[in-house]
């Protein structure tokens, strides 16, 4: 794509999200979402193929529906409160519709069906933007309306998301679909704690973005989109296999890596609010996620997967540059000892 056009489009995506996060007028938030959606369609279509068209169409339709639902909730809120300022939404109907609309944008169950299919149809870089940047805007709105969200609906969606994210990923060999199901499960964790302590939602979002960025960067570096092609990494760049191991175990939530921190904090907040069965259930279901990450490490890092002799020649081609990999690796694996710093967020 022409670099100037790409810059303009990326700027529009960025501007859209910024407008959503910084506005206090509901209409501007809706405009921000629409700007974001329209600008990201060309990004999703970067490699022009029927599959990418299908993915972009699915993304557009679901996000547009969600935006319309959001608009309806805004209008109902306007009717009942008489003002456009973004505050907690007092009317329960508007609150429920808004929660459902934002869940559709995030990809929470039962609105998760678009996430694997869209992520699979687009290139790795577009998938990266889809799974990390696009989650910021809806999450910021959820954060702002969090005092008024109906707890039952949100917790049901969260727990179902963790279940679906765990079980759905079990049968996948395509890396983008694995990352999509991982995203669904992590969104579930994030929204579960939203009503009790929204700061932890933001913490989980931060750590999740770090880990997902790292994973995608490592996939882009080895140009691999299936488990099989990822298993050839030990031929090309053995260090990358170690990094993949660490990041995957961190995404699974194993101590002492930093992926454990959000899970621990979320379990702590939920337990302090006297729900015991829920965090136990969520923690056990997160083990399903850990299973398919471990399976991925088995084929990539912990065994020298069988490969033909052609694979050993790949190192001769010019290596792709991975942006910012060292800080990302540190952020996605070594941040657990910094947990006491969370007290500054109060």
């Amino acid at each position, binding site marked *: 794509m022409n670099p100037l056009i790409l810059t303009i489009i990326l700027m529009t995506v960025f501007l859209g999200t910024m407008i959503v996060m910084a506005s206090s007028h509901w209409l501007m938030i809706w405009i921000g979402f629409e700007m974001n959606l329209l600008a990201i369609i060309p990004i999703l279509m970067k490699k022009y193929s029927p599959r990418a068209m299908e993915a972009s169409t699915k993304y557009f339709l679901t996000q547009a529906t969600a935006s319309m639902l959001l608009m309806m909730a805004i209008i109902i809120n306007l009717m009942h409160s008489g003002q456009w300022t973004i505050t907690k939404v007092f009317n329960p109907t508007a609150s429920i519709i808004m929660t459902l609309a934002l869940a559709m944008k995030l990809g929470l169950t039962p609105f998760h069906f678009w996430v694997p299919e869209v992520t699979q149809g687009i290139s790795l870089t577009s998938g990266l933007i889809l799974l990390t940047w696009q989650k910021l805007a809806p999450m910021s709105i959820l954060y702002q309306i969090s005092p008024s969200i109906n707890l039952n609906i949100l917790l049901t969606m969260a727990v179902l998301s963790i279940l679906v994210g765990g079980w759905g990923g079990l049968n996948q060999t395509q890396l983008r679909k694995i990352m999509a199901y991982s995203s669904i499960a992590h969104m579930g964790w994030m929204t579960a704690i939203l009503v009790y302590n929204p700061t932890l939602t933001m913490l989980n979002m931060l750590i999740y973005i770090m880990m997902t960025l790292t994973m995608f960067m490592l996939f882009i570096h080895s140009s691999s989109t299936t488990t099989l092609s990822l298993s050839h990494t030990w031929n090309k760049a053995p260090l990358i296999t170690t990094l993949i191991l660490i990041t995957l175990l961190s995404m699974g939530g*194993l*101590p*002492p890596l930093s992926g454990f921190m959000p899970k*621990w904090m979320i*379990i702590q907040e939920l*337990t302090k609010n006297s729900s015991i069965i829920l965090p136990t259930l969520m923690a056990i279901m997160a083990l399903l996620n850990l299973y398919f990450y*471990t399976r991925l490490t088995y084929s990539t890092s*912990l065994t020298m997967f069988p490969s033909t002799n052609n694979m050993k020649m790949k190192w001769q081609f010019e290596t792709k540059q991975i942006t910012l990999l060292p800080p990302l690796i540190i952020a996605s694996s070594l941040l*657990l000892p910094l947990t006491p710093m969370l007290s500054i967020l109060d």
Partner: protein
Amino acid sequence: MLKIIIPTIMLMPLTWLSKKNMIWINTTTYSLLISLISLSLLNQPNNNSLNFSLMFFSDPLSAPLLVLTTWLLPLMLMASQHHLSKEPLIRKKLYITMLAMLQTFLIMTFTATELISFYILFEATLVPTLIIITRWGNQTERLNAGLYFLFYTLVGSLPLLVALISIQSLTGSLHFLLIQYWNQALPDSWSNIFLWLACMMAFMVKMPLYGLHLWLPKAHVEAPIAGSMVLAAILLKLGGYGMLRITMMLNPQTNFMAYPFLMLSLWGMIMTSSICLRQTDLKSLIAYSSVSHMALVIVAVLIQTPWSYMGATALMIAHGLTSSMLFCLANSNYERTHSRTMILARGLQTLLPLMAAWWLLASLTNLALPPSINLIGELFVVMSSFSWSNITIILMGANITITALYSLYMLITTQRGKYTHHINSIKPSFTRENALMALHMTPLLLLSLNPKIILGFTY
């Protein structure tokens, strides 16, 4: 405690910066020096704990386990030299780094004061062990073994995390120094029964309890020698140590909640000992014997009498040294014949007489011959369980007999009889191997002179 932790962490830069011909020498020497430092912790003047800081402490229960942990690292490094000799340098360094990382986490686990910190480090020991088993094991079954190991332990321990956090939100702190003074009886309710279960299941899986022991034969057999040594000697004891610490808070539910686990342990020790008589795989035999000995520890911890606590602690240390030595002996066979089948390497006494002496000593301590500390541990456990209920003497007596049977079976099959013609070209014992066995056996024999060090905090 930093005087032990920081040198252990620094073992990792030591391996990466050492020259190719110095990696084993450097790491073994320095880990031996670290174990010398940790010996000073055995000086426990009274039953109370020695508090080094707000985060680390040592008391008569954790000090012997800590000394065992630091003693085993040089032994693990010595045992691994042969099977890693053909690997590229970076992979050797990675292996040693994994061992040093595991050692750091283990030291911090045994000396942690805050229970959540104990939990995080307990879980943290899983990652290096998984990598050691899965990356450096020898057969394809190691993948399955790693999965079983990881998931059995995690499913047991995630409810423990929730339980610890809920206890913390109720009592305000999980620091050992505070809990021992705040201790009050848990009120009787269904949710406290589930709290008891949540707290104990993690350690039951780790010990392992008879019904949850499936991961252990897989993991022990598929792991390389250092992995087997650390698994058998120390990681199992993490379960025992955790149980000894956490049962302090769980009265009076333990009085009735312990029954199913006592039954499983009492029956399980007989079952796993009997299975040992039918094993063809040498490492598998030693793995099942570990399950059997640990079942005795579970019985001792759940009975909660002063004598049984003494027996549990002594048995943990004794079994750690014995089991690790047996795995080293099995590994010396494996390195020569590349097979773990017992009958393929029989009649070794004729070919390797000094190693036969070590086999004899290891088997004798495994069957708890007086005056070894194995006997002290088992005897205390048998006596205290007899006082708890007279009938257990039948099961305990049967267990001691069957233990003797399979230990002698293992000894006689591998050492006595006529050797086979296909092993008369094996290499003689290396000095390294003899040193390894001597370093296992010497503490074991010396401790029988002064067992009060390992008798724990109820002495």
